[in-house]
């Protein structure tokens, strides 16, 4: 008798949980999962975009094999993207945690500085970047090939060069050494904000305890801030990995969207799926390793 009642409560709870998630699940399935599965089908087909619609012919793994045998751009770009990401992720995380901890302090002008650190996110997306790029395009007409890179992608380096604030040779040398650092700073905007939100939810009482127990700032950081923040660090690790892999500056992403825009849908899909699977394996592995170490109240 008791068991039956209990089970019905459990199943009620189960359905309740589902009803809360259903709106999102429906939307995500329609707009993200289905298109994504469609690309899997495209990658196995010969797709032709005609005036009257799309024609498809099943060809099996031909597109995948083509990536390795017929196409000499896929593999180098693929490995370059991998290298970029592996190099970037830890640095982005460390930098954004560092800045977030500082920005979380109480001092005059913190909202101003937070805004400054979020500016790259506002600028690097959508309309604004295309405007700055469009501007670069018109300059290109005057100055030859110099800004042709600029038209494809915008990074700190190119903006600095283009703006002519410092001599080109100095810029080149400076960026040869620390090139990636500035691009990294630029990519940390979202992570900084997520970290700040996480820092805000750490109970102030814990800091008081640490203080009373005589912990110094270094110990407080590792024993309180870092530990309490660990679930959010996991979030940011995942976000950063995914964001760096899908970054439009990544050579392979640029190559895929270029291929897709020229309506070579089947080949773009095949490349995207191979890339997706590799990223999936990496993200899954990292997540499995680190999420166990994160702090949680239920332990």
């Amino acid at each position: 008798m008791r068991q039956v009642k209990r089970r019905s409560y459990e199943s009620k709870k189960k359905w309740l949980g589902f009803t809360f998630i259903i709106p999102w699940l429906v939307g995500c399935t329609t707009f993200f999962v289905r298109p994504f599965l469609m690309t899997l089908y495209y990658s196995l087909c010969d797709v032709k975009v005609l005036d009257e619609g799309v024609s498809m012919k099943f060809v099996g793994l031909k597109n995948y094999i083509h990536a390795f045998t017929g196409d000499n751009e896929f593999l180098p770009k693929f490995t370059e993207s991998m290298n970029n990401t592996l190099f970037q992720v830890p640095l982005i995380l460390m930098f954004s945690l560092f800045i977030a901890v500082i920005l979380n302090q109480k001092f005059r002008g913190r909202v101003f500085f937070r805004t400054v650190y979020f500016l790259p996110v506002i600028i690097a997306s959508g309309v604004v970047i295309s405007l700055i790029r469009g501007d670069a395009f018109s300059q290109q007409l005057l100055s030859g090939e110099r800004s042709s890179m600029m038209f494809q992608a915008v990074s700190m380096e190119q903006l600095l060069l283009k703006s002519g604030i410092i001599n080109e040779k100095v810029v080149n040398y400076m960026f040869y050494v620390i090139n990636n650092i500035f691009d990294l700073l630029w990519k940390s905007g979202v992570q900084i904000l997520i970290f700040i939100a996480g820092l805000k939810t750490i109970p102030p009482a814990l800091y008081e305890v640490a203080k009373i127990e005589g912990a110094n700032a270094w110990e407080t950081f590792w024993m309180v801030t870092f530990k309490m923040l660990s679930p959010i660090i996991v979030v940011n690790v995942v976000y950063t990995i995914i964001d760096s892999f899908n970054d439009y500056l990544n050579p392979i992403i640029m190559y895929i969207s270029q291929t897709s825009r020229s309506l070579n849908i089947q080949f773009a899909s095949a490349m995207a799926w191979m890339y997706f699977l590799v990223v999936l394996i990496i993200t899954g592995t990292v997540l499995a390793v680190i999420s166990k170490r994160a702090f949680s109240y239920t332990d």
Partner: protein
Amino acid sequence: MTKVRKKIYKRRISRSFGGDMVMVLVLTVFGLFMAMPFVYAIMQSLKPMEEIFAFPPRFFVMHPTLENYYMLTQAIGGTWVPVGRYALNSIIVLIISTAGHIIIAAMGAFPLAKMRFKGNRAISNFITYSLLFTAPVTAFPQYIIMAKCGMINTYYALILPSLAAPIGIFLLKNFMVQIPDSLLEAARIDGATNFQMLWKIAVPNVRPAILTLLIFTTQSVWNGANTGFIYSEQLKTLPTMLNQLAASGMARAGVAAAVAVVVMLVPIAIFIVSQSRIIETMAYSGIKE
């Protein structure tokens, strides 16, 4: 008790003047690089025509002028769809997408974070990996699906996909996991329904995350991720229209910079407002346990 507490709190936050200076210095050094492109856009927008095309290009403006902004207002006045219509479209899309996305994400995140049921883990993993789906290739099949649903060239094409973006549910779930169970149990004993627990306990407790999500959503909606699905002039949003204006030719390079500055102002304003609200609310009431 409260007095003691206040005292400790005060001591913790007030640091030496020198410490403040070091912090501000560090932030300024990195901040200069962060702000550079923004300042550059402002500089460009203030340059007269001959300075914009000067070679080699200069960073700072020599003879600042508002000519570009004046030309922008002229161009806006000349569009055949009144500018108010674009602004209205923007507001409708921005408000519905943002509010809807946050509500749907909060609703989905709550049971995933705080209820035990079969499939919970599967759905959570699915959300994490669906963040990977934003690859450029999906634009084409997305277009086909929307065309089949008859959504191309309607508000729906702008609103619905952003409602279902995985970032919100991913973020909120991970913040809600940290709410202590005892808080929710107390609410349940007091007779709160699941719905009340979500809106009265869970959401206020992850307020910083909600406001952060608000920034992300308005930012991506404003910058028009889905604008490719709209071709009728009356339904386009303000940034799209401004972008079109700016894209029409080299003679408008200065206007383009002016547009870039104008378009950036809205996300920056939203950012400042929501960030200052995070501080107000959480400094005193954000106690977890």
